[in-house]
């Protein structure tokens, strides 16, 4: 078999994967209103995006939600990973299994169950319900990322620190956290992106008091074409690309 056949195949699939994204980026600079023909270069959709106050507010809301959800899930996830790694306790397998099930569950199942819970306990749907839901689905991803790092962690390092005079707290600060830092960052970035991208769960657990970006986009794209979405999509693409490159850079740098 020629080596060009597989390579050509790879190229075609990559082409198909990227075609819609390229179309989106190109059309975000399209002056035409219909959105199907080329009407010349223009920034107008970016301008109208930033002049839309509701849109900008949803952007900030989403950003704030993603930041807090990523941070909380990294905190809880890292502690959980540490406990799973370091301690023996009853129910360890059940805990592991539960996290795995959360990760594999269809989002919609998680979404309706959380909605049922929030209505039962009378929680107002809004920022808090969104945060609880987002942390829940980010949690297993953070745990797995940190566990992977810890599994390569030399058990003697904390002991060496204690041996040289560090107490448990100082050891954690000067040895444990620096060593697992790349995993914490990677887990945080993953949580941030998952939160920013989520539509399914957010549809169920958000309320009118706290509108977030994916839902705003959702309501825009359900009917017809909205050129602003091209501009917004391009911005999100650039944003995720920067985040992704950042995380890759951190990971490769730490592997040296």
């Amino acid at each position, binding site marked *: 078999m020629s080596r060009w056949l597989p390579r050509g195949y790879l190229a075609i699939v990559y082409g198909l994967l990227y075609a819609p994204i390229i179309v989106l980026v190109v059309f975000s600079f399209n002056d035409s209103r219909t959105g199907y023909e080329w009407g010349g270069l223009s920034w107008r959709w970016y301008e109208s995006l930033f002049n839309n106050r509701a849109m900008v507010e949803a952007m900030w809301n989403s950003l704030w939600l993603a930041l807090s959800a990523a941070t909380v899930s990294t905190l809880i996830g890292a502690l959980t990973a540490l406990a799973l790694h370091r301690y023996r306790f009853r129910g360890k397998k059940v805990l592991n299994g539960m996290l795995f099930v959360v990760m594999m569950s269809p989002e919609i199942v998680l979404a309706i169950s959380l909605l049922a819970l929030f209505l039962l306990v009378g929680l107002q749907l809004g920022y808090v319900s969104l945060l609880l839901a987002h942390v829940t689905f980010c949690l297993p991803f953070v745990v797995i990322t940190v566990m992977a790092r810890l599994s390569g962690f*030399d058990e003697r390092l904390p002991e060496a620190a204690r041996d040289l005079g560090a107490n448990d707290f100082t050891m954690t600060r000067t040895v444990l956290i620096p060593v697992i830092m790349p995993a914490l960052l990677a887990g945080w970035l993953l949580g941030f992106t998952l939160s920013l991208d989520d539509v399914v769960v957010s549809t169920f657990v958000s309320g009118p008091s706290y509108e977030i970006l994916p839902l705003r986009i959702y309501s825009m794209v359900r009917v017809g074409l909205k050129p602003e979405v091209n501009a917004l999509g391009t911005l999100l693409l650039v944003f995720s690309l920067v985040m992704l490159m950042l995380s890759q850079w951190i990971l490769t740098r730490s592997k040296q």
Partner: protein
Amino acid sequence: MKQTLLSLSNLTKQFDGKKVLDSLDLDILDGEFITLLGPSGCGKTTLLRMMAGFEHPDDGTITLGGQDLTHTPPEHRPLNTVFQNYALFPHMSVFDNVAYGLKMEKRPKDEINQRVEEALAMVQLEDFARRKPHQLSGGQQQRVAIARAVVKRPKLLLLDEPLSALDYKLRRTMQVELKRLQRELGITFVFVTHDQEEALSMSDRVVVLKDGVIQQLGTPREVYERPANLFTARFVGETNLFPGQVDRANGDDTVTVDVFGLKRTFRKPDFELREGQQLHVLLRPEDIRVLAPDEADGVAGKVVERNYKGSTLDSVIHLDDGTEVLASEFFDEDDPAFDYRLGEPVRVSWVDGWEWLLPEEAATFQEEASVDA
């Protein structure tokens, strides 16, 4: 007479119902190089970790210069550890690794700089201070680990199989270097190993451990030449153990023993003897003399294996009754053709007085299996 530095008394530890240490007593003397030797699972690492403070005894005490350390956390013990696989902090430079312990003591910056430089100079790594551990070779990492541990000037240095990750040649070099360091620093070294050769060549005293019980405590020479029991005899060095039977005790501190039908006269051992008692006659391979088949002395056998070792010729000889004998002979300068053919008939003998007698022990068969480690 050296003073006792660290005193372990009645240490007992169980893991999951299995006794790892069994009422162990041991006094470690100031300035000595003492080695804990034993097969894996004998409790030597647990014992070391207990001295360091990573494990806590179920019972018993650890005192250092009269001060009770039994429940002191590791960070407050005036002793340091060189870990197996070194445990260097991967995110810190060599300098920061060595400085870590001094920073924990909150020493002034100038003092830290000076002492770290001294420590690095001592292990000949002055030029590597800015490197990260992964940029160093195994031997260099080993030296950093040592510098990091001794920079705090501990009273006692614990070394947990520190040379096991190095290749043979480097291990020999580091053995010499560790001895030199210990002499220069005057620090007490507690060294853990399962390598009996390493233990014999480096230590002032050797502790042979099995199943959490000290089998023997003595100088390398005592342990090798006068093992306290069959386990030590088999674990330390290569051994021929011949079955013997007491023929009669003589008046002049000797005893006549029947070995392979030969009546040999040995030095009287420390233990009680009865006539007709079974015992073991221990002879090291280098004690064995291999004679020509027409000699009158010795027992008949034939050569089944020969290994040229450079300075010695090691051979395995099967006696007619099936007993296997290991022999190690130095080359005879006057006889360049000195060698055996496989299957060549020989006679095996030894010089009386070089033997060591051990009493018959109950249930020794299972031990043999655990000695290989």
